[in-house]
Every structure is written in structure tokens, then in C-alpha cells.
């Protein structure tokens, strides 16, 4: 059986992998060339984190699964990412809203995880927290520009933060795996990240002259492999070629 750390690494790895996949869909379609560079850069950082985490998860579970086995040969129901990262790109404002929520969360998470008693996780976090600090900054700057830009951009940015807001609750849910590991100091109890996250997001939304979203709909299920319908299509595309040639090396 798989260990709690393997499961935890899989959760974080899937978050990074799926968000990277979504961001890479922007390739050659960004609003300006600088953003083609920036979005690819975010996708690359996340992909790097995903590779480290999936490789680590595979080594711990002891079934000989590589990062590619985990990425390309699991089914929809076996992925453990939160629903937020699989949400479709929408327009640029929607993508930025997703980045603002997720990068702020990931920054708090990795900052705390630097102190993990698990040396691998601590090492990954120490490296990734620097990358994610940039991701957060990128999202913050664009949230400000779009929120406090034109009438149209404000409307779109408000729509983005509103529509994705419900999916943020899941980021801070403590499942059995996280709780067990938090007890031993290997993982972070996600609930402890919420105050700093919320303060940080609220500050940006206010500075962007936007209204803080609310509402009590809190969809969840990603950590248990219950995803949204859009996820199956994303996965089908991601895995299509790999599955077309079973057993081939690339």
C-alpha cells in the first residue's frame, strides 16, 4: 500500500501538473508576446514541481511507477488535484483570477512546507517557493491592472474572481492524509494557511478596486478523485498520444 507521504506528494503533484497543462493551452494565444513568455514560464515551473512530486510519490509507493506512469496512465478518478486547477482557462481575467487564488495558496503552502520533517518535501518547497513568489506577483500585478484598468477589464476581472471563488474552499480542506502528516510535521494542515491567504487575496482585490467575492457554495471532491466534467476532456487530450502507443518509450 501507498504511504501517506506518497499520497500527499501525489495531491500536490497533481495540482501542479494540471494547472501547468491548463496554462500551456495559452501557448501562442496570449494577449501579448510578453505574456506568451510569462505564461509558459509559469507552466514550466509548475511542470518541474509536478515532476519532482510525482517521481517522489512513485518511489514511495513502491510499485515502480514513474512520473510518466502516474501522469499518463491513471484514469480521471485516480487524480487528486483540487477542482480549482482544472477549471477551464476562460478569458485572460479568469486565468489571472485562478492564478491569484492558487499561487497565493501555493506560496503559503510551500513557505510552510520548507519546515517539513520530510527532507524531500522540504527541499522541493525551498526551491519552489521562490518560483511561486514570482507567480503570485505576476497574478497580483495583472489583477491590479485589470481591476483598475478599463470598465471592460474591471467587469471581466470581477467576473473571474467571483466565478472561481467557490473553488477556493477546497484548498483549505484537511483530508485524512494531510491531517495525519501534519501531526508528524511532514505536511502542513491546510486550514492553517487560510488566514494569511485570505488577508493577502483581500488586500489585492481591494487595491484592484474590486469587490471581495462571497457565497456559500463550496464544491469539493478533487482530493477524492471526483472532478468536474471538463477534467475528463483535459485528461483525454493530455494522455491521447501516450496511450496511442502502449509501452513505447519517448
Amino acid at each position: 500500500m501507498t504511504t501517506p507521504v506518497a499520497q500527499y506528494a501525489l495531491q500536490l503533484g497533481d495540482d501542479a501538473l494540471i494547472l501547468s497543462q491548463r496554462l500551456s493551452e495559452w501557448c501562442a494565444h496570449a494577449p501579448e508576446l510578453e505574456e506568451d513568455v510569462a505564461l509558459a514560464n509559469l507552466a514550466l515551473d509548475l511542470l518541474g514541481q509536478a515532476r519532482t512530486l510525482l517521481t517522489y510519490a512513485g518511489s514511495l509507493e513502491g510499485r515502480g511507477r514513474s512520473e510518466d506512469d502516474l501522469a499518463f496512465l491513471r484514469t480521471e478518478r485516480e487524480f487528486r488535484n483540487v477542482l480549482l486547477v482544472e477549471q477551464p482557462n476562460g478569458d485572460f481575467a479568469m486565468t489571472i483570477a485562478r492564478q491569484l487564488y492558487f499561487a497565493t495558496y501555493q506560496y503559503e503552502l510551500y513557505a510552510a512546507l520548507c519546515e517539513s520533517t520530510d527532507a524531500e518535501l522540504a527541499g522541493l518547497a525551498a526551491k519552489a517557493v521562490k518560483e511561486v513568489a514570482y507567480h503570485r506577483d505576476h497574478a497580483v500585478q495583472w489583477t491590479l491592472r485589470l481591476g483598475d484598468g478599463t470598465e471592460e477589464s474591471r467587469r471581466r476581472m470581477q467576473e473571474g474572481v467571483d466565478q472561481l471563488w467557490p473553488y477556493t474552499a477546497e484548498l483549505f480542506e484537511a483530508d485524512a492524509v494531510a491531517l495525519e502528516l501534519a501531526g508528524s510535521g511532514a505536511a502542513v494542515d491546510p486550514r492553517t494557511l487560510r488566514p494569511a491567504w485570505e488577508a493577502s487575496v483581500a488586500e489585492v482585490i481591494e487595491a484592484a478596486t474590486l469587490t471581495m467575492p462571497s457565497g456559500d457554495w463550496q464544491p469539493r471532491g478533487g482530493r477524492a478523485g471526483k472532478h468536474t466534467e471538463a477534467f475528463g476532456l483535459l485528461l483525454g487530450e493530455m494522455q491521447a498520444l501516450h496511450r496511442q502507443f502502449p509501452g513505447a518509450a519517448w
Partner: protein
Amino acid sequence: MQARFEELIAADERIEPRDWMPEAYRKTLVRQIAQHAHSEIIGMQPEGNWITRAPSLRRKAILLAKVQDEAGHGLYLYAAAETLGVDRADLLDALHSGRQKYSSIFNYPTLTWADIGAIGWLVDGAAIINQIPLQRCSYGPYARAMVRICKEESFHQRQGFELLYDLAHGTAEQHAMAQDALNRWWWPSLMMFGPPDAESAHSAQSMAWRIKRHSNDELRQRFVDISVPQAEALGLTIPDPDLRWNEERGHHDFGVIDWTEFQEVLAGNGPCNRQRVAARVRAHEDGEWVRQAALAYAAKHSADGRDGERNVAAA
């Protein structure tokens, strides 16, 4: 001024933005640099087509980084063009309206994953051969941009070769996929060096101005000579029955290029011309409100000056 310009050219020194230059020289450079920049950004499309489907995470990372580099090359090159007194928005407009071209090679589709390897190996390979001499181009900003670009392109070329090598040495299906890609990309790659010297419109003047240093046919021959042993190393067959070593010339002879196809693609009738430009225009139009927002934000926050930091961020 003219004399000073010719002196610099003759001494093989660099012309810099502050220097006087003949209008025709400036125009030639703008046209060439813009076309080069456009090629980088249109070139992101055929490769971008496979990022979401890359068959391993390592290959996905390599491809993503490569496409990111291309966007970066586009940025340097537009910046180099801007030193000649044009601006990026106008150049993009010329691309979108069809007044300026990009390399015809990107009007071919990427039909399989092996095409990503073939583009790296052959298309980047041909580009490098075209571009190495440009590192010594008489116009300074362009020459310097080419130094960095060539370095990255060599890296991409090796990665493409390696991708194809793994396919060619993989399963029978993978090998067939690699061969099929070579079959489709070989001739279009030869056409990347432009029309035969006898018919090349701009070559003579560009050579005199040291923008260009070798003829199209010379560079094409160099490409063939370099590619033949590489194809052998891959275990793939170049789709040209007339290809053979000519001891006397010390070069490979090769078959006759179908210039009708080249002219068709150039005239807008390649397999993907319409899709490439349409996708580019769509991205630009869809991004209009974002660029407007950034401008509006920057204007607000530089006007009242109360928030220097945000200002910087929005610059």
C-alpha cells in the same frame, strides 16, 4: 555620411542605430528582421499544437521551454527592428494584414509527434545555417540578437535530433512515424534557403551591404552536406532518390526542388497559411481589451503618481 557608412561596411564594422544609413538599407533590414520576428511567433503554432499532448513529462518540458524561447526571440527581434524607427504594433499589423511575410515552412501542419523532432532537427537546423552568418551582419542590434538566438537554436536542434533518434530507435511504429516526418519535412526545409541564386531578387544588394554573406544555394548545399550523415545516424532515409556524394565537387548532389510548390505556399496557398494568420489575428483581437487595460492602468498611475510601485509593475 554616405561615405562614413560605406567605410564602416567595407571595414566590416557594425552600423549602429545612431549612425546614418541609406534608406534602402534601413528598409531592407526592417523587412528582414520583421519577417524573422514574425517567423518566430508564427512558428510557435505548429509546435504549440503538441504541447498539451507531449507523450512524456520530460518532452513536454523541453517543448514548452522551446516554444517559450521562440516567444523570447520574437521579443528581441521586434526590439531590434524598433531601433530602426518602426514599432512593434505596426509590424504586427503588417503581419496580420499579410503585408509582411513569415517563413513559409510554418505553413505546413504538424501531423504527428515526430514532426516536433523534424522541426527541431531540420527546420531549426536550416535556420541556424541561415543565421550563423547573420551574427556578423553589418547592423549591430540584429547581429547581437542573432548571437543569442543562434545559441538557443543549436540547443533546440540537438533536442529535435535526440527526439527523432529515440523514435527511430523505438518501436516499428515509432520508427515509421519518424520516417514519415522526414518524408514530409525534407523538401520544405530545402526551400527555406530561398529561391535559387539565379532568381533571388534581393541577394546581390544584401551581400554588398554585408547583411547577407552567402548565397542561397551555398547555404542549401551546406545544409544537405550536414544533414546526410545525421540522417544516417538516425537510421532514416532522406526522400530523394537523386541524393549522392559527388567526389569531384566534394558535396552531395541532390534532386530538383519543386519550386512550384514553394511559390504556391509563398502566395498563401500552403496547407496552413489561412489557419496560421487567423489564429494569430484571433489572439491579437482577443487580447485587445487586456492591452487597453494595461495602458489605462499605467496612465492612471503615472498621472497621479501616488503609487510608484504599481507604476513600475505596469510599465
